[in-house]
């Protein structure tokens, strides 16, 4: 068993094992999604240019201009309709294939989680009073069955188990499972940007199954590490998973924009792939809460996919927005159009001590988008703190 925690998908005993049939189903959906995403999706520009555009022009006597008009032209094309229907079906079948081994091993996974949590060094604090935002109540993000808030009783871990297994299958398709984790990439950035900085109290906002929390706890064994999310089933699983990987983390059911912690009580506040699942108001509140929670000299670092919609032409933006409307990514363009520099500044971070831009993974195969701010007077490394405006294409999670 690989226990290297700096890789994206470390192995641990809570991962359900697929039998022959389940494995075949997973490989099939992976192949189907790969074909739809990598082979057919890039051909949609051709479909648009050769069929959709001339047809719309003939009917309207002019070219489509707005995103809505381009969508009208594109969504009328049978080949795009086929692509859309297949991509939607593939996503639904992906979850069926991911869920099957988890459902089959559900009881044993639950009891393993229970026993890991009984001998825990970290902790779990649930608070059913916390009210989740509308988007999480009404949308199953990524079409994950039951959504992030799925909670079927005091031992239920389905939301976390599904989230991790879905992510693992997806990264198997992308071939990224053994690459540097997002958190390790962020820590490498911090060593460059703020070399003098060693956190003692760390908070991971919107932690999900804790995949990004664990690397901090292992890298800073002397620090106290906390993490929040809203889904009880995510948090129970995250807690057990962290224990299984030997990480001590304190998990809390709380809104990332209104945490139960005191002002100035952390010196590192992070989030990973969280902004793109938040409304514009929640994103702003995430930065404001980060600022409130930081002690002077403390750092916030919010990482996400490098999707900047302004870099794309109208047609490509329309293609991206398929996920927003039909694949459970309702905040996709709210994130892709946001302005992290402005969000940082509005939250109280001095632009002189802020950073926004891309940062490459260790093997240079991909770059993440980072928005970082340092509170108060402490200085940060000048060369790395330049604002980067070079932004590149992001991949849908």
């Amino acid at each position, binding site marked *: 068993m690989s226990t290297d925690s700096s890789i994206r998908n470390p192995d641990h005993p809570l991962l359900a094992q697929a039998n*022959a*049939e389940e*494995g*075949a*189903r997973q*490989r*099939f*959906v992976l*192949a*189907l999604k790969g074909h739809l995403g990598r082979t057919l999706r890039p051909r949609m520009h051709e479909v648009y240019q050769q069929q959709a555009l001339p047809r719309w022009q003939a009917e309207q006597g002019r070219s489509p201009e707005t*995103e*809505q008009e381009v*969508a*009208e032209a*594109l*969504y*009328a094309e*049978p080949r*795009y*309709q*086929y692509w*859309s*229907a*297949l991509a*939607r*079906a*593939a996503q*639904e*079948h992906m979850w*069926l*294939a991911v869920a*099957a081994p988890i459902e089959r091993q559900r009881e044993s996974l639950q009891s393993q989680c229970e026993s890991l949590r009984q001998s825990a060094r970290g902790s779990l604090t649930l608070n059913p009073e916390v009210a989740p935002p*509308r*988007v999480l109540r*009404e*949308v*199953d993000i990524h079409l994950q069955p039951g959504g992030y808030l799925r909670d079927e009783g005091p031992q239920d871990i389905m939301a976390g188990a599904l989230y991790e297994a879905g992510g693992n299958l997806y990264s198997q398709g992308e071939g990224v499972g053994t690459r540097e984790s997002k958190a390790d990439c962020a820590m490498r950035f911090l060593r460059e940007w703020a070399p003098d900085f060693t956190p003692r109290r760390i908070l991971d906002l919107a932690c999900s199954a804790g995949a990004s929390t664990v690397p901090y706890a292992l890298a800073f064994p002397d620090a106290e590490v906390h993490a929040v999310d809203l889904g009880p089933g995510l948090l129970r699983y995250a807690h057990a998973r962290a224990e299984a990987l030997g990480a001590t983390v304190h998990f809390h059911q709380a809104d990332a924009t209104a945490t139960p912690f005191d002002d100035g009580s952390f010196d590192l506040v992070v989030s990973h792939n969280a902004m793109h699942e938040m409304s514009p108001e929640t994103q702003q509140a995430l930065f404001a809460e980060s600022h409130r929670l930081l002690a002077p000299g403390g750092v916030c670092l919010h990482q996400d996919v490098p999707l900047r919609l302004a870099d794309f032409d109208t047609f490509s933006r329309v293609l991206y*927005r*398929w996920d*927003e*409307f*039909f694949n*459970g990514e*309702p905040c*996709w363009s709210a994130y892709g159009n946001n302005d992290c520099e402005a969000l940082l500044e509005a939250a109280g971070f001095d632009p002189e001590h802020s950073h926004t831009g891309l940062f490459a993974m260790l093997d240079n195969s991909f770059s993440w988008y980072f928005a970082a701010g340092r509170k108060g007077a402490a200085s940060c490394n000048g060369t790395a703190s330049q604002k980067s405006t070079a932004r590149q294409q992001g991949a849908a999670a």
Partner: protein
Amino acid sequence: MKPDFSKDPIEAAQQRPIFFDTPGMDELVHMLVAMAEEVAVLSERLDNAQALLESKGVLSPAELDNYVPDAATRQQRLAQHQARIARLLSVLQPDVAAD
């Protein structure tokens, strides 16, 4: 169906989307995907069995071609086909979980 960008995508998420103009086409695509998945499962299963049997020297490919199942096995096969069909047509019963 096309997205209405003037609307909140949360509303679009409340039902399974319909992309085709012809009613029923979207469901047909789901069935096609389910069908293709079954073929993938079966072909892996067969490959596994053949590989194991050949590696153990138990049988040759020719013996497989001539095998006829007994009555009990035939009943079991029938049940399997029924389950497979239920999965294939599960899109027609959104209220029934496919398993």
